[in-house]
């Protein structure tokens, strides 16, 4: 028997009755509960109307009607309810969250009833789902119209709370959740950005008035810390967690950075303990990688204060200071070492720094660095360059700084660096002997012998030396054999310097170049013009390195060689010619080689060293104890390595696993938490 055809009007009437009941149900009005049976009936009605054969297949009309229903509901019920409450901020918010919640219930119910549409018709026609359409209506008809009013209402509440009044946090939270449900970008752009601006101006006003009021610095700091704490609480109560860092930054900026000079003056004048903000200020400046004169003064001031606390008997403040400051400068070890470098070289604006100053600064920076091994590594690299490139800092001076660093840091902190300075002293003595050995002048060769392992490892590349240089190397080797037997000398030409006389048309100019560069130039003694290939064949240098060398001689500021074609980069088809027309104002010119940024390499090296250190420590501990549980092994490990760095449990676990694969350790079969040493 053919099922009875449901005609549209009839069918829709039935469904509409159901929807009306649903609406009332969603508003939690006193109605008989909407039963599962009723849902099923409606669902079935929809289903039937969709599977009827054409022209009684009413899928499209149903979809249409459903959308219209939602839109109509918005316009007839939701919007008027909200508009009614526009006068009262708080009531508006309450109404909003309630209507939103009800509306979601309704839309969800509708999408359940019309689910059959969703599965087939909507998918087939690639239409937006009922939920999407429903949410869209709310967004377009309510959110877009009212959100700025809503925002104002919320911000007003926030300011009220700041002034100490109690507000309805629940409602505020639900409002912000609503923003987030509409979309995270909406939250950020339509609310958060305004909230941050509002916060900034609020605290700007407060800061100015507090500073004016001639508060003692202690009170100011106390008030500021309180505000920060409250703002953080605010986030946990109703803001989105991602707002916290942005909010904190704004508040810190207004309360501390804007008035930093006054704060520091006050602190210094009153000799009070106000370390938190100082750490914050310091941090903001340290994060900026180019330190300029302004920071120098600032940092100087911080260091003076540090001194004050070192001297006082106030241990509490001492440790607090370091803890705060340490946190503030975490991760800027490269920066600190650079800072040290500049200070030691007195390259600091126009102010002359006394030896004492320098020592204080270096000690201070070494102390606050948490990962001493990274700091030490950077410091060592910079020290090496200072020593090798003869930057005019006295050995005694370097030594005295190292002594102070050693006092502050137990362990192997300065071992290598002291050895480095010794190497230099030894080399200088050697040099005198070498001069005597050579007797006949003619070879102007100065050699610095570095003990491998003590100095940072330097990359160098081989090159075919010209005869004159080969002879020099041979002579020195012979000499060195007379001093010490059985040592292997590896020449690091990349660190060498040559003074080459360039006989140019206008005048002779002395060129200060690296050894590698000199070798390239000397090729042009026999031939005026050489192709890239010629040069490469004669010198036997890799492509990358050779490009680097030739670039420095032909594309930089001083063009000793003319490159054909005169493009910006060096390629394999280029031809080079001695630039006889070259001239310069001075009679001595340095041709620099572009430097490679090696910060990454330092960190890689330190990471490698750390891995070895952890491995060695684990093996040592396990060899002694034979069997140990994980927790104990970790704590012993951390204790033994604590001087230089703090290994985290994850790294230790990884090293243990590695040692297991290398058959140093095994996991106990019965107790997986226990490890055994494998002899």
């Amino acid at each position, binding site marked *: 028997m053919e099922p009875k055809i449901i005609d549209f009007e009839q069918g829709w009437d039935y469904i509409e009755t159901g929807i009306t009941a649903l609406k009332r149900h969603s508003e939690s009005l006193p109605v008989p509960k909407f039963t599962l049976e009723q849902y099923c009936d409606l669902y079935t009605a929809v289903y039937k109307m969709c599977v009827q054969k054409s022209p009684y297949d009413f899928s499209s009309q149903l979809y249409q009607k459903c959308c219209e229903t939602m839109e109509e509901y918005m316009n007839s019920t939701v919007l008027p309810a909200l508009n009614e409450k526009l006068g009262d901020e708080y009531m508006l918010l309450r109404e909003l969250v309630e209507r939103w919640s009800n509306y979601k219930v309704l839309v969800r119910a509708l999408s359940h009833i019309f689910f059959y549409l969703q599965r087939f018709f909507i998918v087939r026609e690639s239409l937006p789902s009922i939920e999407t359409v429903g949410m869209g209506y709310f967004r377009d008809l309510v959110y877009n119209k009212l959100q700025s009013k809503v925002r104002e209402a919320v911000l007003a509440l926030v300011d009220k709370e700041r002034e100490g009044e109690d507000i309805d946090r629940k409602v505020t939270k639900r409002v912000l959740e609503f923003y987030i449900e509409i979309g995270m970008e909406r939250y950020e752009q339509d609310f958060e950005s305004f909230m941050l601006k509002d916060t900034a101006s609020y605290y700007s006003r407060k800061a100015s008035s507090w500073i004016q009021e001639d508060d003692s610095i202690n009170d100011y700091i106390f008030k500021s810390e309180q505000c920060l704490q409250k703002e953080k609480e605010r986030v946990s109560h109703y803001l989105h967690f991602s707002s916290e860092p942005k909010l904190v930054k704004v508040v810190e900026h207004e309360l501390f950075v804007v008035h930093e000079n006054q704060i520091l003056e006050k602190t210094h004048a009153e000799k009070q303990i106000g370390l938190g903000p100082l750490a914050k200020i310091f941090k903001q400046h340290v994060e900026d990688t180019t330190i300029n004169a302004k920071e120098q003064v600032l940092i100087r001031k911080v260091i003076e204060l540090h001194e004050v606390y070192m001297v006082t008997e106030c241990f509490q403040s001492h440790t607090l200071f370091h803890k705060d400051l340490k946190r503030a400068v975490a991760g800027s070890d490269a920066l600190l070492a650079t800072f040290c470098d500049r200070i030691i070289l007195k390259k600091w604006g126009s102010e002359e720094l006394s030896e004492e100053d320098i020592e204080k600064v270096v000690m201070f920076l070494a102390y606050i660095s948490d990962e001493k091994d990274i700091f030490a590594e950077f410091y060592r690299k910079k020290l090496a360059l200072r020593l090798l490139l003869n930057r005019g800092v006295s050995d005694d001076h370097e030594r005295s700084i190292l002594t102070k660093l050693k006092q502050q840091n137990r362990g192997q902190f300065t071992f290598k660096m002291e050895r480095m300075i010794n190497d230099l002293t030894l080399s200088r003595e050697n040099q005198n002997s070498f001069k005597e050995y050579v007797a006949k002048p003619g070879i102007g060769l100065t050699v610095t012998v570095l003990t491998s392992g003590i100095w940072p490892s330097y990359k160098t590349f081989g090159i075919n030396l010209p005869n004159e240089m080969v002879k020099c190397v041979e002579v020195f080797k012979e000499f060195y054999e007379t001093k010490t037997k059985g040592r292997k000398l590896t020449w690091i030409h990349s660190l060498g310097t040559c003074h080459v006389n360039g006989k140019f048309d206008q005048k002779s100019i002395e060129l200060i170049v690296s050894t590698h560069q000199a070798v390239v130039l000397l090729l042009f003694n026999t031939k005026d013009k050489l192709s890239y290939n010629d040069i490469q064949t004669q010198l036997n240098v890799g492509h990358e390195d050779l490009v680097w060398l030739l670039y420095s001689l032909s594309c930089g500021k001083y063009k000793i060689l003319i490159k054909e074609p005169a493009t910006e980069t060096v390629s394999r088809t280029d031809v080079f010619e001695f630039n006889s027309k070259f001239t310069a104002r001075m009679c001595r010119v340095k041709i620099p080689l572009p430097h490679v940024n090696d910060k990454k390499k330092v960190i890689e090296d330190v990471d490698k060293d750390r891995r070895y250190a952890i491995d060695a420590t684990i093996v040592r501990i396990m060899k002694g104890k034979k069997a140990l549980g994980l927790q104990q092994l970790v704590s012993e490990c951390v204790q033994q390595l604590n001087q230089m760095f703090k290994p985290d*449990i994850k790294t230790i*676990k990884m090293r243990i696993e590695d040692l297991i694969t290398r058959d140093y350790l095994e996991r106990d079969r019965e107790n*997986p*938490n226990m490890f055994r040493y494998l002899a």
Partner: protein
Amino acid sequence: MPRSASKTSKKRTQPDSVTSSATDPVPSASSKKKSCKEMDATDQLFYKYANTSSGVIDPEGIEKLCSSLKVPHTDIRILMLAWRMKAARQGYFTKAEWRIALTALKADTINKLKKALPELEKEVRKPLNFRDFYAYAFKYCLTEERQRILEIETICKLLDMVLGSTFRAQVDYFVNYLNNQKEYKAIDMDQWMGFYRFCNEISFPDMINYNLEHSWPCILDNFFEWMRSKQA
């Protein structure tokens, strides 16, 4: 297979003679003779599948065996059989190994073997045995000498086969994780056993009793964090 079928029927009617085979016919009717006959039957079954030149059952033979047993080639029960006979080399059964398993299962014909499989499975799934079986599964796949690790692809298939029926969710998620991460290209025995422990001890998928500071292998720590980030 007609010959084995006839052999079966012959057995049912208490044969007093042995058909020609590689073993010597023994005319006595003592129980000793009977066990010899069984051995011979087992041997004969072996030779049905063994490679004639090498004298062992090779991968081709195992495939034949699988189709006789009406069991898919990649079925866990073949692995279980291998475990039972402590087969040393993946894809090969020696005569000695074969005898160990079939004697234990009291099977000397293909049908008896087939009927013994459910019993075998039950045996393997006993908690004490299963751990051993699980470890064996890993070792069984190590084909090169001194090989200690298995590639991720192999591990995924193995996990599915060995733990798929008991820890479906854990296996699915973990396999998904393994295929998406880039840090590990292979798994070793310690990590393999770690996962078994994980399935048994850690409530899933909430993993509330998992602790990063315990001695779980790092790969499971990473898996845990990956799961957490997905659940957020």
